[in-house]
């Protein structure tokens, strides 16, 4: 029998920064494990993969991955990533952030990046709450869940994130839960290999705030809930996958289409309009050493 002494994902992590800030039972670390496995299986040159996060618990992901990593401002990971990709087209750029960061304060950027088909993989860990600030209501908190700013229960209509980004033009949309580690890693790998605005939502437990405040038990019990209530419906219409409180969670790959990315559309139009006069953007070369 072979004894594996090394965690295969360690080489993708900044181990000198461990332990992470995440609470026991938090789902974010599980998703990072899946992401590292997806990178492991991808065969990509990881020097050419960059990760960008916003602010919040999931916003800390960038800091733990051993990639070129950028921890930006609240809600603005997507425009930072768009600029990074436009200036350095050979990079694969991944945005990794939470539901509050991406869909509330960063909502405008999320929809416009999907519309213009910015060439980004956006991973959204949806734990239905703002964890870092102590468990406030987010655009995804379902009726009538308790949050620190909805002490009598949430009552606003929520964002069905796959529906919203698909409507805005995303070319790849999928959802899994933190229970579906194999499927998630596979979907992440698949999405990494594609172009255009790709969006993966991951339903994940926040035991410290969301689960405790709603008396839903520990992380393990949440895993059982995901196991029992998740229904795989690949190809489901994204507008039909909204999540109600403690009801079934529709998971799977909902959208997988192709259309020109922002960069391709830009290049094509400039070429059409300017012909031989068009001077395409040049990838900045390998750094020239200090003179």
């Amino acid at each position: 029998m072979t004894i594996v002494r090394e965690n295969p994902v360690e080489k993708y992590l900044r181990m000198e920064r461990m332990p992470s800030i995440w609470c026991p039972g938090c789902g974010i670390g599980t998703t990072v494990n899946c992401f590292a496995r997806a990178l492991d299986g991808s065969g990509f040159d990881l020097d050419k993969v960059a990760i960008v996060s916003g602010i919040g618990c999931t916003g800390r992901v960038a800091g733990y991955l051993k990639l070129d990593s950028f921890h930006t401002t609240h809600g603005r990971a997507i425009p930072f990533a768009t600029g990074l990709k436009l200036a350095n087209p050979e990079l694969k750029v991944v945005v990794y952030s939470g539901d509050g960061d991406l869909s509330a304060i960063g909502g405008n950027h999320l929809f416009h990046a999907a519309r213009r088909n910015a060439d980004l993989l956006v991973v959204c860990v949806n734990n239905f709450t703002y964890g870092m600030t102590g468990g406030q209501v987010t655009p995804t908190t379902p009726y009538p869940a308790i949050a620190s700013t909805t002490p009598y229960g949430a009552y606003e209509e929520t964002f069905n994130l796959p529906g919203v980004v698909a409507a805005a033009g995303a070319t790849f949309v999928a959802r899994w839960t933190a229970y579906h580690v194999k499927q998630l890693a596979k979907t992440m790998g698949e999405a990494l290999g594609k172009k255009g605005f790709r969006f993966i939502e991951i339903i994940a437990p926040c035991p410290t705030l969301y689960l405790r405040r709603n008396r839903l038990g520990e992380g393990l019990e949440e895993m059982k809930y995901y196991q029992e209530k998740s229904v795989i419906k690949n190809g489901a219409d994204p507008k039909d996958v909204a999540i109600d409180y403690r009801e079934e969670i529709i998971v799977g790959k909902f959208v997988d289409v192709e259309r020109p990315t922002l960069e391709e559309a830009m290049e094509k139009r400039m070429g059409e309009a300017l012909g031989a006069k068009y001077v395409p953007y040049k990838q900045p070369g390998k750094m020239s050493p200090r003179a």
Partner: protein
Amino acid sequence: MSNAESTGVLTGSHYLDGDHACSEGAIAAGCRFASGYPITPSTEVVERLSQRFPHVGGRFQQFEDELAASIALQGATWGGAKTITVTSGPGFSLMMEHIGLAAITETPCVFVNVQRAGPSTGLPTQPAQGDMMQARFGSHGDYRLITVCPNSPQESFDLTLEAFNLAEEYRVPVIVMLDEVVGHMTEKVVIPPAEKLKVTERRWTTKKPGEYKPFDANGGLVPDMVKAGDGYRIHVTGLTHDERGYPNMTVPAHEKMQMRLTDKILKNVDKIVRFDAQDLDGAEVVVVSYGITSRIAQKAIADARQQGIRVGSFRLITAWPFPEKQIAELSKKVKAFVVPELNLGQMVLEVERIANGRCRTIPVPHVGGTVHDPSVILKKIQEAVR
């Protein structure tokens, strides 16, 4: 456009407005990424870039708002490009958070604010100089940056290019503070051949991955840079961080980072500060002005000199850092400073603080969306020598 095709530099004599000259200054500096959101009276800068960039290998992206525009350029900087974004009052307010991000992450980039009258939507099409303190203090926390104030389309070209050089030299956001009049006035702009321009390139590290720490200044004040994709696997964060770029919430880490962010400007003030001094020898009164107001003040100064008043001119080219040493020296020799500006008193506060009672400081505030009547400035000069 003889030179334009090869280097992008629009060598020759042109009749340009200040906004368009700013675009050309950026191109001449090697800027090849711009982000923006439309706002009067600054939009012409990105309109020209959107037209010119496809001819010189640059990329312009219009974003959904100024929040996006002011961080997209920083992503592009870390991607290896020289970058610019352009706005006016309301957009400048939205960009404040990302000026702070650029300061703490030491991201070289250029912000342009073509000032209009505020507060809020204010007078969208009319000039003001009401954002001078915002340019210095607008983002939260302690940081230093560099601000330049062109007073003509020619200077809009020259100082935009210079802004890029300073951004690279000190790894700070540099703000070009135009105003509506300089932005929209059209004058002759002479653009030298590319080889005659001084362009500061990014200072890349010579260290290897593993040895390099992105925020270690190696005993100096400004760390060398790398870009994403070259194998360094850097981490860049808006959190307080150590030399590796890793978050560190301790007192020594915060203090060390803060002091270097401040010192890299303060200890280089003499190299950074730029001003234009005229007729200071024997002057009893010195008019301190900047931007379009310095052009109006010229008329008042000429009239006063004709009346025999010994008046000199000190024009701020960098508003920040402020030329403290020069103003302090002058304050020992003159009776008064006269400070006209298109606001209710901003840079005059700095003049007064540095003069520290050694001479009078006379503000000449003006609001309303027009420039001063020179006779108002003249009256204050006369008052100063009485």
